[in-house]
């Protein structure tokens, strides 16, 4: 019997130098999670895309222009000080979004959400989507809906769940077989669909997992900013808006400095100070 196992902290690292912007992650996410369509998808600001790929440029003109594609799922924030009070969870008045201390996953309880959208206002990543319309699918596509994911009704908020249903299936199987789930047993749809292998998913708490080995998360608060916990000790790895203290579990990786700089806002001269700072171990470096 499995007892007293250490809590998981599922997260991902996305290699932006590998991402080609093909959109496979977005498509697989929509198919996997029964994301509905609108009749008119031209107005993107009310389309539902749990995974959205942003296009960033270095702002330079030809021939120095560089482009990077940045996939953005829900960042599954651990919140200030890594205590589970993520921006959305702490504000939801009806406890319709919750932080899983055993997984680090921010959940959304569709049948409890009453659609106040406070969570959307609080999320700086625009990772939350409101069902402005009744969910519809092109004729015949209803047969392709996944039985493992409940479709959402009009008037509630939804978002990326790190394919939590896949975790449930893997966990149940492992439980029956009286063992821990293995790294490859629980992978999100976007991770498995990425043809460039740009997305690596796993348990940030498990040193055997690839994601942990790449990110090398610092378990201590950042001495420069005590709100930040889990800062990567890999100089190529960064998080989106890290200095706000949202403590996301989605990390990004790039060899290019301008890409890493694009992950946060800096005052004049700040970047040169912080770019070589990688967690508590390098605080004096």
């Amino acid at each position: 019997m499995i007892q007293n196992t250490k809590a998981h902290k599922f997260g991902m690292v996305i290699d932006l130098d590998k991402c080609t912007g093909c959109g496979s992650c977005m498509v697989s996410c929509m198919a996997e999670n029964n994301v509905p369509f609108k009749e008119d998808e031209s107005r993107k600001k009310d389309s539902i895309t749990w995974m959205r790929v942003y296009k960033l440029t270095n702002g330079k003109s030809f021939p120095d222009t560089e482009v990077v594609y940045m996939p953005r799922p829900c960042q599954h924030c651990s919140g200030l000080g890594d205590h589970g009070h993520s921006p959305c969870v702490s504000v939801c008045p009806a406890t319709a979004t919750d932080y899983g201390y055993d997984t680090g996953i921010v959940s959304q309880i569709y049948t409890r959400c009453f659609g106040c959208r406070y969570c959307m206002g609080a999320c700086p990543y625009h990772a939350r989507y409101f069902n402005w319309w009744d969910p519809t699918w092109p004729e015949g596509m209803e047969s392709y809906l996944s039985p493992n994911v409940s479709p959402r009704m009009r008037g509630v908020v939804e978002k990326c769940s790190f394919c939590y249903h896949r975790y449930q299936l893997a966990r149940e199987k492992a439980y029956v077989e009286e063992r821990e789930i293995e790294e490859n047993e629980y992978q999100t749809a976007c991770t498995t669909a990425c043809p460039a292998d740009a997305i690596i998913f796993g348990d940030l708490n498990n040193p055997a997992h690839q994601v942990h080995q790449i990110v090398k998360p610092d378990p201590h608060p950042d001495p420069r900013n005590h709100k930040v916990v889990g800062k990567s000790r890999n100089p190529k790895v960064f998080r989106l808006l890290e200095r706000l203290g949202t403590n996301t579990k989605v990390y990004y990786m790039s060899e290019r400095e301008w890409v890493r700089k694009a992950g946060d806002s800096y005052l004049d001269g700040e970047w040169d100070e912080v770019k070589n700072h990688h967690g508590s171990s390098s605080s004096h470096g």
Partner: protein
Amino acid sequence: MDSALIPEGAKRCPFPKFMLGMAIVGAVLLWGVYAMFLCWFKGLNQTNMDDYYGFALWIWADLAVIAVGGGAFFTGLLKYIFKIDELKNIINFAVIIGFICYSSALLILAIDIGQPLRGWFIFWHANVHSMLTEVAFCLSCYFAVLTIEFIPNILENRQLNKVSFFHHLAHNMHGVMAVFAATGAFLSFFHQGSLGGVAGVMFGRPFAFREHILIWPWTFFLFTWSAAAFGPCFTLLVTKITEAITGKKLVSDKTVNLLAKISGWMITTYMIAKIIDTVYWAQVTAPSMGFTLDHFYSNNAFYGYWILFAEIIVGGVVPGLLLIFKKTRENPIALLTAITLGVIGVCLNRWVMVLQIMAVPVMPFDTWALYIPSWQEVATTILPVAYGIMLIAVSYRYLPVFPQELELNKPAQATE
């Protein structure tokens, strides 16, 4: 036709004229009701809100009516707890305005949520960490208090008051009103504050986020303070509008000037706190997150420094100064200018704390999000205004709202 219902000795316009006015405003109300039902039955796709603008015109209207409705709790506090007896001449009207504002706020919230039938989940599945939970509880309770405060005035209607039970009930309710005034002030402190907290706790939004004292961000205290400061301005403004429409003096200058003076000092002290808050946020809080003040007021088609200037100087410092000095306060034009600017100023503050927060980009590669409300949003926002006008009209016609009305209009009535 309805003379038996009109307060004794009071003069009112002919019934057909009254009904004509009600019909015109009623048509606007029906337009709003139609839009409201569209939103309920077809969903929030009837609005121009989107996933960038999850909070929009309604939430601004909600916060604005609650702010200007703050005149009810603050006047009640002054009258019943601080025993400023002069304010008895305006307290009934302040309560009615508060009642209208808070019932409107609840209605707007009922339209704004995506699943209106689940509105009660906010109580049933309450998250005690959420400022919105505190808003919901205090708002509902305070609306109940306002209803209780309004009831004695209704029971003083000429016909209802003939019923012995109602007469005594109204009398006794007046006797214990201090308890409700204190309860109202307590509840208002928390719901006005938690409405400010709604924005101030959003640490993912550097434009909104403020430093905290324990669990309360500065906006918590600023919202309560501003509601107490500017709420009386709205009470006075609506009184002036009612006087202009009815062609009568309804509240004495002494009462008006007293409330204006208190409001002036509240506004002035509030503005000092607000300016300190703004400077600290601009110099310390936002830069610690990597943002300069410029970021929040440039690179877009609408939000510039003008809005900061309009809110703080034009809608704050100017009315505050106009109201604290006797000479300007007692000048009718300056008084009217001050209370109008004050109301605009606090509404602008709520606008900034709702709509500008949504508009400002946070991710470095994101863009400003601007939005224009749909007609359904406009209609449902005007709906409470029409409802408010109708309730004030009915109350003024049939209830003894203004205790000084007969006395102040004696000479005019004698010449008729």
